[in-house]
Each structure stands twice: as structure tokens, then as C-alpha cells.
């Protein structure tokens, strides 16, 4: 992993950082265009999902039924095509891994209490013809996986999913099967209907880059949804060109090298986490892993905004989504995101002061 690499280590990015960044930005734009056409009034969520995709993280949507999360995941899955493109080999020194034959662009898993880990990961079945056990891949073998109502299933299944998310591989019968390089999970949970659920513990929530709480869309957007009613919402993105799987992988690689993260911003990120840990309201602070994951997220957001450097605004915008679900708050604290904002605020102040300092 070269998450901490900033400049110069990657030959391709060193040669033309603007170029690769432009392409990464275009990828995000094209995906964003398709998603926005499919889902109305969710521009903020779409951006976060795309950032997570490019930052190689996973997203947990806290949501109520009928809010378009399936549509979102499906549109995303269908926007990433597997077809090899001509530019695929143009200069990347490391060949991008090819997707296995059996991969689907998009799979949805509806989690229920009686689901078993093998229903998710896949299982070995006895092939009568060959007389051997053959691995039949489960729904995880896809580019984009929608894990619906993740808190409704047993911890065993949750653990299986989370292992896959963390390691990008599944182990069945002591055989490890790698998942697709692109593997991207959008999980959802219903925050209100908690009876008969298995809430995810904080360490497991740590595996998600973002936890996004979706709000109802505004009036105008709902009217637009009604206007489009007869047609399938997915058709709206049809006119826009999809991106290839390799485009996304290339974008992932590009941001790590080419997006500049100034030292004060790194300090701000670390200091936010440290001051969160020091807060008596926070029983358990954020992990170091969260910081490692947050860095590409900041870079991805910069690219989404067509910048080649991370600025304080990125930290301000992403910190609540990155940190809020990773901390465990004392009883009486209603809104962890608010706590996070309180701790980001002094860092923003320091960064604002820093920006006024004479450049050295």
C-alpha cells in the first residue's frame, strides 16, 4: 500500500500529474453525471459515494426504505463496465489486474437473520463431472455490492462480509479466493426499526470509510422524481458514457501520488483524532487506520473538485463522515458528528491562521 506516498514515487504520476488527475476527475464527473441523472436530490451522497469509491473505501448508508439507495448502488454498478478500453495499456507500467470471468458488475445481498456466511461468500460444491469440489462464488464477487440492511443478519455473516471488505478476499474451506480489485460495498441499515437487529459494533463500523445519514430529499427533487415516473430511473443515465473498471482503478492510483497534502493538513488530521480521543465525552477515539483511510478520501475529494491539492475545506467536509461512526460516545451525547465538528473547528482555525503565514 502506498497510501502515504505523496510525490515522485510513482513514475507515471511524476511525469504528468495534471494529466492523470484530469482523467481521474473526468472519471468522477462521468460517474457523477450518470448517478445524478438516476437519483435526484442526492448530490451530496453521490459525491461521498464516489469519493469512497476512488479512495478505495466502503460506505455505510443509514437510511430508511424507499430512499433510492438500491437505485444508487445499481446505477453505480452499471456505470462501471468491464470492457477493455484502448487506453488501458497506454503507459501504466504496472498492468492492471484483469477481472475474473465470473464477475458481475453489481450484486445485491438482502441480509436476513437466517442468512449464512456461505450465502455471501460462496461455497464449494461437488462437481459430479470432474469428481472434485468446485468453488461457486457468492454475491461478493462483484464490482459493486449492495449489502442491504446489514444489521438484520447475524454477527457471523457480518463478520464474513467485513473480512471480505478489509482483505478483499474470501476464505472458504481453507482456500482463499481473491475478490475483484475494484470491490466496493455500499451497506445500508435502518436506524429506527431496531427490533430483532444485530447492531454493528464500533470496531466493525471502523471498516467503513464513511457512514452517511441520508435525509429526505427536497420538494423540488421529489417533484422531479414524479415527473420521471413512467421510465425507469436507470434509463436516465443511459445517454452518458459509462466508465471502465480500469478507469476507476487508474483514478485510485492517480490520486495517491498526484494530489498534494500539505504538512499542516496532515497535522490537522492527526490533531483532530488526538483531540477527539482526549475528549471526556468520547469513550473510544478513532483508530490510526481511520487516518490512513481518510487521507485518500481527502485526496479524492480534491480531485472531485478539480484541485491538485487538499485544502482545509476537504477536512471540514469529510471529517464528520469519517470520524463520527468510529468514536463511541458517552451516554447523553446525541450527535457524534457534532462532537467531531467541535474538534475539527480548532484545527480549521489553526489552518486558516497558517494560510496567512508568509510562505517559506
Amino acid at each position, binding site marked *: 500500500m502506498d497510501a502515504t506516498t505523496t510525490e515522485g514515487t510513482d513514475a507515471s504520476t511524476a511525469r504528468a500529474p495534471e494529466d492523470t488527475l484530469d482523467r481521474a476527475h473526468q472519471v468522477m464527473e462521468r460517474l457523477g453525471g450518470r448517478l445524478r441523472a438516476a437519483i435526484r436530490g442526492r448530490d451530496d451522497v453521490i459525491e461521498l459515494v464516489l469519493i469512497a469509491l476512488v479512495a478505495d473505501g466502503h460506505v455505510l448508508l443509514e437510511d430508511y426504505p424507499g430512499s433510492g439507495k438500491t437505485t444508487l448502488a445499481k446505477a453505480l454498478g452499471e456505470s462501471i463496465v468491464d470492457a477493455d478500453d484502448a487506453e488501458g495499456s497506454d503507459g501504466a507500467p504496472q498492468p492492471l489486474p484483469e477481472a475474473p470471468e465470473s464477475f458481475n458488475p453489481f450484486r445485491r445481498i438482502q441480509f436476513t437473520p437466517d442468512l449464512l456466511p456461505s450465502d455471501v461468500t460462496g461455497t464449494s460444491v461437488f462437481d459430479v463431472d470432474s469428481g472434485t469440489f468446485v468453488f461457486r462464488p457468492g454475491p461478493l464477487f462483484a464490482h459493486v455490492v449492495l449489502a442491504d440492511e446489514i444489521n438484520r443478519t447475524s454477527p457471523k455473516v457480518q463478520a464474513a462480509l467485513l473480512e471480505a471488505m478489509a482483505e478483499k478476499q474470501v476464505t472458504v474451506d481453507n482456500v482463499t479466493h481473491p475478490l475483484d480489485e475494484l470491490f466496493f460495498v455500499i451497506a445500508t441499515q435502518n436506524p429506527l426499526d431496531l427490533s430483532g437487529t444485530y447492531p454493528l459494533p464500533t470496531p466493525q463500523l471502523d471498516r467503513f470509510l464513511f457512514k452517511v445519514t441520508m435525509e429526505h430529499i427536497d420538494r423540488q427533487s421529489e417533484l422531479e422524481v414524479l415527473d420521471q415516473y413512467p421510465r425507469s430511473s436507470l434509463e436516465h443515465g443511459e445517454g452518458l458514457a459509462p466508465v471502465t473498471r480500469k478507469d476507476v482503478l487508474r483514478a485510485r492510483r492517480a490520486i495517491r501520488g498526484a494530489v*498534494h497534502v*500539505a504538512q*499542516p*493538513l496532515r497535522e490537522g488530521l492527526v490533531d483532530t483524532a488526538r483531540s477527539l480521543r482526549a*475528549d*471526556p*465525552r468520547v*469513550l473510544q477515539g478513532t483508530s490510526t487506520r481511520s487516518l490512513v483511510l481518510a487521507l485518500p478520501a481527502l485526496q479524492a475529494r480534491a480531485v472531485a473538485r478539480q*484541485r*491538485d*491539492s*487538499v*485544502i*482545509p*475545506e476537504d*477536512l*471540514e467536509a469529510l471529517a464528520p463522515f469519517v470520524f463520527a461512526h468510529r468514536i463511541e*460516545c*458517552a*451516554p*447523553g*451525547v446525541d*450527535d457524534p458528528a*457534532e*462532537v467531531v465538528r*467541535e474538534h475539527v*473547528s*480548532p484545527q*480549521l*482555525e489553526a*489552518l*486558516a491562521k*497558517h*494560510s*496567512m503565514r*508568509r*510562505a517559506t
Partner: protein
Amino acid sequence: MSEAAATRRVPSRRPHATDPVSPEPWLAMALRMVVHAVTAAALVWPLAHTGAVAAAAIGASLGSACGRLMARTRVRLLAIEAGVVVALAATVGARELWVGVIPLPSLLGPAAAMRVADAWLFGAGAVWVTAGLRALSSRRPALAVLEVAAVAIAFAQLVVAHRHGAINRPFAIADPILAAGGDPTMAFLGIGAVATVVLVLLLLRERSVVRSLLHVAVAIGVVLLVIAGTRTFGLPPPPPSGKGLGLRGDSEDESQRRDRGRRGEQGDRGGRQRDNEQLEFRNNYDSSGSQTPVGVVVFHDDYSPPHGVYYFRQSAFSQYNGRRLVHATRDDVDRDIASGFPTEPRRLPVTPPDSARRMSVEQTVALLADHTRPFALAAPVRLAPATNPDPGRFKRTYRAVSRVRTSGYRSLIGSTAGAAAWSDAQWNHYTDAPDDSRYAELAQRIVEQKLPARHRDDPVARALAITSWLGEHGAYDLQSSHADAEDPTAHFLFGNKTGYCVHFAHAASYLMRTLGLPTRVATGYAVDEAARRGGSALLLSGRNSHAWPEVYLGSEGWVPFDITPEQVLTPPPEPPDPDLQRLLGELARGNDPLPQQAAPALPRLARAARDLGGLVGRIGGLALAIGLVLLFGIKLWRRIAPRLVSSRALPRVQYRAEADRLGEVALRRMRGESRESFAARVRAQVPSFDALTQRHVTSAFGRRAEVDRGELERTARAVREERRRAFPWWRRVVGALTPWSWMRTR
């Protein structure tokens, strides 16, 4: 972790600066209303009648509630305060209208109308003032200090006269209690207690301990200031009346002097008109109280009179009225006598002929008693008013320049009598004498007896013969018996030859006139040169009043020929007290004659405190000026820096300049807000600021890149243009004039 730990720090967010003020609990509001009502009543009590006091109390409690409500609106604080000022002006105007224009007085009667108008003025005024204060302290908690100060002042001014153990002050409070036989001390203690309670109520309302402490500190500071001020500077001095020297009249001590009734009496005595009118023929010349100083003369030139006597001429008698000499009624005689005090520098119409035997002497005369005419050394040529150095002591001061004689009579031998230009009428005026032939006989006899033949026709010799004869034969006594005679002069001269200056002067004049010498009786003050004691000040008292004969000599003008009686039955006047003379001279010069020993000097500590105060004031003023220059300088630099800095620093400096400009119109980044969020917040008013912010932030956190100077400047111009459109000119001007606006740019 316990629940207590969790609730110890309740999540709190700084309220937005423009957030409306949160509502106040009703009890707190009611308490505040009571506090303001009591304050207003205490403030108005000494000023107006009971109705107005009640109106003020009601008004203040209303205003207290109003102010809070106004503070909760979204109206700007400046607008609220401006509205309050306008409302105050309208209230005053309405009162004038009611009393003056609208016939309220004719409906209610004048007294009732005034009462109603006062009640209106104080009631409505209290509403506005309290509301203004309340709005101020609600919006800006630091300004709650003003509220506390207002309450403290209201009570302090109520009992401000009650100092230094003046148990009967202020009369408005003490008199009724004393009249009822009570002890006002208890009332004052009560007022103090009420003030304390009111202040405590006000302070209790503060949620913040720091702010409460600040208020208490202000209250303590005010008290200390009052104590220190009283200790250092003392009470205001009594009205200037003579600096306690007891010179105005009989010696009186300071406390008696303060008494108004006594002062009137004293003025009556000391303010007696000093004039030659008093120089009457009297049998018993009352000289009691004539030691009282009537004036002090300060010489600016050194001058010793030829015969050892200073003659201060005030007036002259030259017209014979059948009994004695009186003021001339003719216009063309005695024109060298000043008719009144100078209001501007002026020359006298007639001055003595210029001669080498005269010199100029300048004097400052300060009158301690009222005079009808100025006097000066004979003969004055110029008079000018002078600044009165101590109006409490001197009635009037003026300057005079006199041409005084420097040589004795010997040098005058050979002068002709009278002026060549005189008409017959003038000659007759100055030589008119009683028809009594005895004068002529006596005069002839004296001339023949005293003078050798060659000098018998010389005017000076003749005049000297007469004066010396009178000196030999006359006796000076203030007790005489000539006043009832038909011709008091004849009664004196041909009788016992005992009298005082008026008798001698008249006798000499008549004798000289019969000899054909133009003569008159001059009046004023004559003082022995020795009385000066080497100083330049000369103190004149009533005992120095004098009358002397003068003869007009063609080459010299009017020359005194005084008589010195050899036989003196009344002891001559005591010379003035030299210390008093010197002291009054100093006073007339405008100096403070009383060094350390007379007035209680300021304690050294107090003087040091005053010096320190002056020093602190000067340093403070200087620091203020330097601070202002510095603030404006930095502000200006930040404004023009974008034109001067390198391209690398430009995004930062340009951003700072525009952020300063936005700060002037109260668009400021809040603490903890990122620059980008701030730009998003002000996007509605200045959309271009967003772009500028992006440039600045990416240049600060991004890779080093080329800066497009022109583009940056265009963006900055767009920001300025948008700011101009979004904000009225006066807000921009106010912002530009605020020296510290840049300090609040974050």
C-alpha cells in the same frame, strides 16, 4: 466513564454573532424592571415633583422590557441606538410643544401644565434611555457595565452633597426628616442599602462569574476614584472672596467670611465710594476705618519724586462757587483730569507741555475700594485697562503712564504763570477768589515779608512764599471748627489757622489767586516716598487722601505746591504694613503672593498623584495618538500591499486585503470556520470572494504554482464591485474610518 463525566461538558456552540438574543426568564425580567424603576426614581427625585418621579419609574420599567424586546429583533444595534436618540429628541420636542405651542397651559393652568409636561419628559425619557441601555447590554454583554455604572451614578448623585459629615445635606432629603425631629443618618444608610440591593440584584442576573466580577470591579473602582479624588483635590474651593486675607474690611475669619449676610454688610463698608467729594470742610474729620487699603499702585519705572511725596491726582477743584472751590463746570478747563476709567487705551486730551524736567513712569493701579475716577501720579498722559488678576479682591485695575517731574522748584524759577493760549474767561476761572480783601492784604504781606525784592514778581517764588508761610503759621488737626462759617477758609486762615489739608489748600489757593497765579485745589492721594520702603508697590489707604494747591506754570503745566504744617496736632498716618503692601503688590501683578505657609499646601503624596495623573494623561494621549497612527498605518499597508508584493505572496495578500474590506462591513470569518465556509456564507453578497478564497487556499496548501496576477486582480476588483453594490456607502465609510477593523479580520 460515568454519566456525570459525560454531562460535565455539555456540547455548546458559540452563538452566531447575529443570532437574536435569547428570551429572558420572566422573574429575571421583572427584577430588572424593578431595578431600573428604582434607579430612574433615584435619578429624578431631586429634579422633579412626585408625579414625574413616578412617571420616570414606570417609564424605566417599561423601557427595561422594551430594550430587551428590541435587542431580540434583527435590527442592527446601531439602528436601535439611533432610534433611541431620535425618540429622546422627539420627547423633548413634544414637551416644548405642549408647554409652548399647544394650549395645554390654558386648559390646565400653567402649574398643572408644567407638571404634566415634566411627567411626560421624565417618563418618556426614562423609557428611551433605559431601553437604549438595555438593548446595548443585551446585544453586547460587555456593555452591561454601562448599566451598572448608570445605577451607581443615580444613587451617587442623590447623596453627592452628603460628604464630609455634612449630615444636613442634601437638604431635599434631610430637611423633612430634621423637621420631623428624626435623624437623617438612618435615611442615608437606607439609601445606601437600597443602592447595594439594587446593584446586587443587577449583578446576580449575570450568568457569568467573570462578568459579575467585572461589574463589582467597576463599582469598587468608581468608589475608589471618588475617595481618591476627594483626598487628592479636596472639595471645590469656596467662591473667591479675598483668599482669606481679611483685607476687604475688618479682619474676619474664613468661616464668617463665607456667611452671605456678613458679606453684604462688609461690602457696604469696604465698598464705600472713594472720592474727593468727601473732602469737605468738616469739623470732625472721621478717620475711623481710614486705615483700610483703598488701592495699591505698582510702579513699573523707578521714580523718586523731587520733594519726597508721590501725588496721585484724581480730581481738581478750580471753580469758585462763592463759598469754596468745586469741580469746574466749564468744558475748557481742567481737561487734564480723566473723567472716567479707561475701557480701552487712550490718551488724555490735555497733557503737560513736554519738557526735559519730566520723565515717563508707568504704573498699574489696582483699586480695593470703589472710586468714581481713576487716579495716577501727576500728570497722567495715557490710561489703559488692565486684566484684573483677582476679581474677588480688586474692584478694578488699570495702567497709567504719567509724565512726572524730576526736578525741584529751584529749576522752575523764572517760569511764567498760566498758559499763553488761555482766554480771559479761563484766566478768570483760575484766578477767581473771594471778594474778601483780607486775602489780598495777607498775600501781599507774605510776599513782601518772605521774598527779596528781585523775586517778588516770580510766580514760583510767590507760590512758595505762600505755602511756606502757611506751613509756618498753620497747625494740622483733623478736629476743627470752621465748617459752619460762611467762608470756612477765611474762618481758618484769619482764625486759629488750625485745620486739615482742605483748609490749607483752599487758603493757599485763594492767596495765590489774589496774587494773580492760576491755582486750583487738586485732590487724590499723597504718599511719602518712604512708605514705599524700596519696593515697587505702594499701598494707599483712606488716611492718604489729600488735597493740595496747584499752580499752572507755562513751561510745566500744573505743579503741586503743597503745604507742610510745622505744627501737627493729629498724629500723621501710620505707614502701611510693609508685608501687606508687598503682598497686595504681588497680587496686583497677578502673582500668587501666598507661598507655602499661608495656604495649606497639598500633601506631598497628593501632589505626586497629581503630577502622576498629568504624566499618565500625557503618556496616555501620546500612546493613543501613536496607537492610532500605527493602527491606520497597518490598515493602509494591508490595503496597498497587493500592489507591492511578489507574485508568490499575492494570493495571500490580495485575499487579506479583500477580507479586511469585508470585515469593515461586518462580514467576518468566525472562529473555527474554515475560509471556504466563510466564502460560502457570504456568497449571496459577494460571490466573487469564493474564487479569491480558492486561489488563496490552494496557493497556501497546494503545490507551488505560477500566479496569474491579472486574473487575481480582476477577481479582487469584482469582489470590491460586489461589496459596493451590496452595502450602502455610509457603512463602507464607517468601516473605512474604524482604525482597528483589520484586527478583527480572521
